[in-house]
């Protein structure tokens, strides 16, 4: 190793040390801050989407109230809207009027999405722990197998150390080295360990991994992860609803969801719920739209749906790329650091986790057949079978911290730094000319990225506006005559 390279190997001196209490407090503060950011980002993503849904909901409300007015007195949303139109946004209270406009436009969609979210959350609860990782095909531990018996004991030990009820243990016969914790509440949590991890890690290392997972459960990470996955599923459901007039498979899915809701979540078997969740989370499966030789009237009728569907996808993608994904990545990485620090508190042995992380990084090229959402639940990012598929909305940035950074933080909490961090390849120092070049490149890139962000913001606003205008025109054209006829 050259001198220059040596200079980059961090040797933890007394100044770099950090007790696990301090580390926990620091990461908890950071996670709190980023949690607020995530909530803001969710608003920024959700409000334009709610706006896009407004014409459809408004049309439905108008239709319903018109039909009601045949029987008795009913409010008249269309008349209300036409009455307030005309002189809008010009007076001296223009800001207030625009805010009111935004509120009116966004509230119905937001309420509808929240209700859908609640329903999906209920499905999640009834799907139990299988919901997200169901298709992996995990099995309970065999009591006869000494190593698996030991794993169950380890889980019980760590649960005692954390003062939590012991989670159930599932094993996955795969050579991949990974482990996940899942479950909607402290009492109903499960720890999933691959057989590969059990074979590769010794007792101390497995203990470190289990401690991390139990710490995550205790810190509420699993609940958070499930809520996020439910949010992604809500977006998927709204997408299917918009697509329903166009696509038979979307109609099929919605029918199944309807049957599920009809029977009641409590009565349904977990496997069916798991299938539903999987279908909701699945990315677009190519073009399954109705055959193209539709007549023109149908095309005109469906235009707003296509428009809303396209704009919904565009805005969801851009807004989550701009706001949600970075905030989520920051939050979830700090949750991982926090769980690492709590794991050190539980085992008082940072070395076990450090060595386990090295196994986790150097793992065989073995994919786990789980969706990318499931990576929220794992201790390190699993190699997903659908690796080629695009990352789900909201998870476009890496949500697991780099192994080298976790290593450095664990060393600061007292792990012997003897084993070097995994991909801690020391960067060669740039020569002076290289620095100049890098500076120039940055100076060029910053305005470019700024421009890109501006463009995306513009597209979000324009897409929302376009969907809103086209949608409202369609409502007026289609429902206007009917309205006049019925009233």
């Amino acid at each position: 190793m050259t001198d220059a390279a040596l200079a980059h190997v961090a040797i933890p001196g007394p100044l770099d040390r950090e007790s696990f209490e301090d580390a926990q407090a620091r990461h908890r503060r950071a996670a709190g801050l980023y949690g607020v950011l995530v909530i803001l980002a969710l608003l920024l993503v959700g409000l334009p989407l709610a706006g896009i849904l407004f014409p459809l909901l408004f049309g439905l409300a108008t239709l319903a109230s018109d039909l009601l007015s045949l029987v008795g007195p009913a409010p008249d949303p269309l008349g209300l809207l036409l009455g307030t139109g005309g002189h809008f946004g010009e007076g001296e209270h223009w800001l207030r009027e625009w805010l009111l406009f935004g509120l009116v436009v966004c509230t119905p969609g937001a309420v509808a999405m929240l209700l859908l979210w609640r329903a999906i959350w209920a499905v999640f609860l009834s799907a139990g722990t299988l919901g997200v990782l169901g298709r992996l095909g995990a099995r309970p531990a065999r009591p006869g197998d000494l190593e698996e018996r030991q794993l169950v004991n380890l889980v019980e030990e760590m649960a005692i150390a954390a003062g939590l009820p012991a989670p159930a243990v599932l094993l996955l016969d795969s050579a991949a080295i990974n482990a996940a914790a899942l479950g909607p509440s402290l009492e109903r949590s499960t720890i999933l360990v691959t057989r590969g991890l059990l074979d590769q890690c010794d007792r101390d290392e497995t203990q470190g991994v289990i401690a991390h997972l139990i710490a995550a459960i205790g810190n509420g990470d699993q609940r958070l992860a499930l809520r996020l996955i439910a949010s992604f599923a809500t977006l998927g459901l709204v997408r299917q609803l918009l697509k329903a007039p166009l696509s038979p498979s979307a109609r099929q899915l919605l029918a199944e969801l309807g049957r599920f809701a009809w029977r009641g979540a409590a009565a349904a078997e977990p496997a069916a719920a798991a299938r539903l969740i999987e279908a909701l989370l699945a990315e677009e499966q190519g073009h399954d739209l109705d055959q193209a030789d539709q007549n023109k009237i149908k095309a005109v009728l469906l235009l707003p749906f296509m428009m809303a569907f396209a704009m919904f996808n565009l805005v969801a993608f851009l807004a989550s790329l701009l706001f949600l994904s970075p905030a989520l990545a920051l939050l979830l990485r700090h949750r991982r650091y926090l769980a690492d620090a709590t794991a050190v508190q539980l085992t008082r042995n940072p070395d076990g986790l450090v060595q386990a992380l090295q196994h986790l990084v150097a793992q065989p090229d073995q994919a786990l057949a789980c969706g990318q959402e499931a990576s929220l639940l794992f201790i390190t990012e699993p190699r997903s079978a659908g690796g080629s598929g695009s990352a789900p909305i909201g998870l476009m940035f890496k949500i697991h911290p780099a192994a080298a950074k976790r290593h450095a933080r664990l060393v600061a909490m007292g792990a012997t730094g003897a084993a070097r961090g995994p991909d801690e390849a020391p960067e060669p120092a740039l020569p002076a000319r290289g620095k100049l070049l890098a500076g120039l490149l940055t100076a060029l890139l910053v305005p470019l990225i700024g421009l890109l962000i501006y463009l995306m913001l513009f597209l979000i606003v324009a897409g929302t506006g376009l969907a809103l205008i086209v949608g409202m025109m369609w409502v007026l054209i289609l429902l206007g005559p009917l309205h006049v006829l019925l009233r």
Partner: protein
Amino acid sequence: MALWLILALLAAAAIYAVSLYNGLVGRRNQVRNGWSQIDVQLKRRHDLIPNLVNAVKGYLSHERSAIDAVVQARERAISAGSDVAARASSENQLTGALRSLFAVAEAYPELKASQNMLALQEELGSTENKVAFARQHYSDAVQRYNTALESFPGNLLAARFGFAPATPFGLEIEAERAVPEVRF
């Protein structure tokens, strides 16, 4: 205006005091819960010991003293009652007796290799760990609770509402506490 301000301040103070009180209650419950966890694990250990004794009796007929020490330590631990200090010392003696029994068993290859013994050893070893982690959790809880009791705003409430400091579980056996003798 001034009246409202005073009222608001009073309300804030009241809310703060209530949350402080509830925090103390929560921590005290954590301590109690931690103690009951230790209790559960210790009982589990007591229940496992007869199995162990049965498993080793046949092999260790010449090592009666080690077995007897474990049996007697178990009986003393069971009858120690709920006093934390007495309980801790008798349980520590049991730990020591178990350790020396396992050390003796090391010398008997057939015993070491028997499947039954391996499983028992894992169970007892894990139970030892569980006791240790339950103690760790208990002492963490005691430390958090006692710190909250003694630090400033908490100590005013604690005295008024009769929160007593909790006793930490004695951690080491006497032999472990002794400074090891180092010779060069």
